């Protein structure tokens, strides 16, 4: 069973930026790419549980604010030490100006 959950308004996130979204006791990171597409991953770095929403988005990379570990936020793939474990990603759609995340 999975639900589409409203995370934020599309305009709440700047282009090439990230925002934190908490839901049901879990935390997620919602991304807006330079191409104006939206993506979602787990909100905490798989290395040391730091909120990725405080990090830096560069192209398709999110860099963790604590140790500069890198992930491709579109695929969740770990892209550079010290992160070794991929992030879980979630489907995202924009409907009527709202960003919706399918949380499983």
């Amino acid at each position, binding site marked *: 069973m999975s639900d589409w959950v409203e995370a934020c308004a599309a305009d709440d996130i700047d282009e090439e*930026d990230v925002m934190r979204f908490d839901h049901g006791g879990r935390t997620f990171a919602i991304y807006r790419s330079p191409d104006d597409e939206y993506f979602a991953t787990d909100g905490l770095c798989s290395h040391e549980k730091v909120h990725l929403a405080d*990090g830096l988005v560069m192209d398709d990379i999110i860099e963790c604010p604590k*140790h500069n570990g890198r992930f491709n936020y579109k695929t969740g793939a770990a892209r550079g030490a010290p992160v070794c474990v991929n992030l879980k990603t979630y489907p995202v759609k924009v409907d009527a100006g709202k960003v919706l995340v399918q949380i499983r």
Partner: protein
Amino acid sequence: MTAAPSRRDYSLIGRDAKLAVENGLSAAEWYHTDIPRKQMKELMQRSDGPAIRDTAIWLAALIASGAGGAWFWGTWWCVPFFFAYGVLYGSSTDSRWHECGHGTAFRTQWMNDVVYQIACFMIMRNPVTWRWSHTRHHTDTIIVGRDPEISVMRPPDLARALLGFVGVLDAWHAMSDMLRNAAGNISAAEKTFIPEQEQGKAIRIARIWTAIYAATIALALYTGSFLPLMLVGLPRLYGAWHHVMVGLLQHGGLADNVIDHRLNSRTVYMNPISRFIYWNMNYHVEHHMFPMVPYHALPKLHALIKHDLPAPTPSILAGYREMIPVFLRQLRNEDYFLKRELPPTARPYREEFHSDAVAAAAE
């Protein structure tokens, strides 16, 4: 009656390491000064320009001074050239290793990786081992038993600290570790912070470096001259003084086992040459609080948050004037440290996170 000071156990697999994990000091949530997201994003922005410029200057100066030293080898005229070459080789690489390891110096990642590998070789730090040790240093900064990069432990070993200025012990340990790693041995302490899948890389690098040093020694023997070693290897000793001079100021004499970088790190105003060599790591509280900010943006970050930080130490000399008496007093009372005062505009220290006994030791 005063209780005898407890002995700290700095082993990464010892008593204090276990205690730090049990009492939540390890992997804790550290204090951060509030910065609006928009400003933080601007500060974090990456750019290749400043690091390309600085790297070009660094490499040009390195080649010119090395060539001058070689040209005048055998005369006193080689001394000033090797003085400069040594600092560029044995000290500038400390900050290049550091910034490129964070991945913040250049925007383009392969540029960070190339300079990182070169700098690691020169400073004699295995690029795999030290990437992971530095990760731990940022997670558990000056947490006894957890931080593998505490340069002056308590009570301070002053002879060891002094020998650091000529790199003797560092180079000895680096060479021993390199040969041990090259033989396929990762120590128990290294295994606490290097993931298993990365350990093979550390061994491979150690073997390549061993081959380079063996070739350099062979060339020196073949030519009957120290010159090859003056250019490769020895500068890590005779040029180490600058990185040790500025590096000791980062945390020396300040608090341990706290989770507020304002208590355990020091920002020091420095001259432009030292800042070039050191790549602005004199803004050390700022760097630890926000490691995503590239070295060239640290002065801006400092200006933005200095209202919330202890007053910066005004010079390198002033730093030693405040640090050395603390080291001397720690010989008698290892719990003593310098507690840095906050300005009235700062958010106060959260004393509930810091032991009363330790706080009292500073008074």
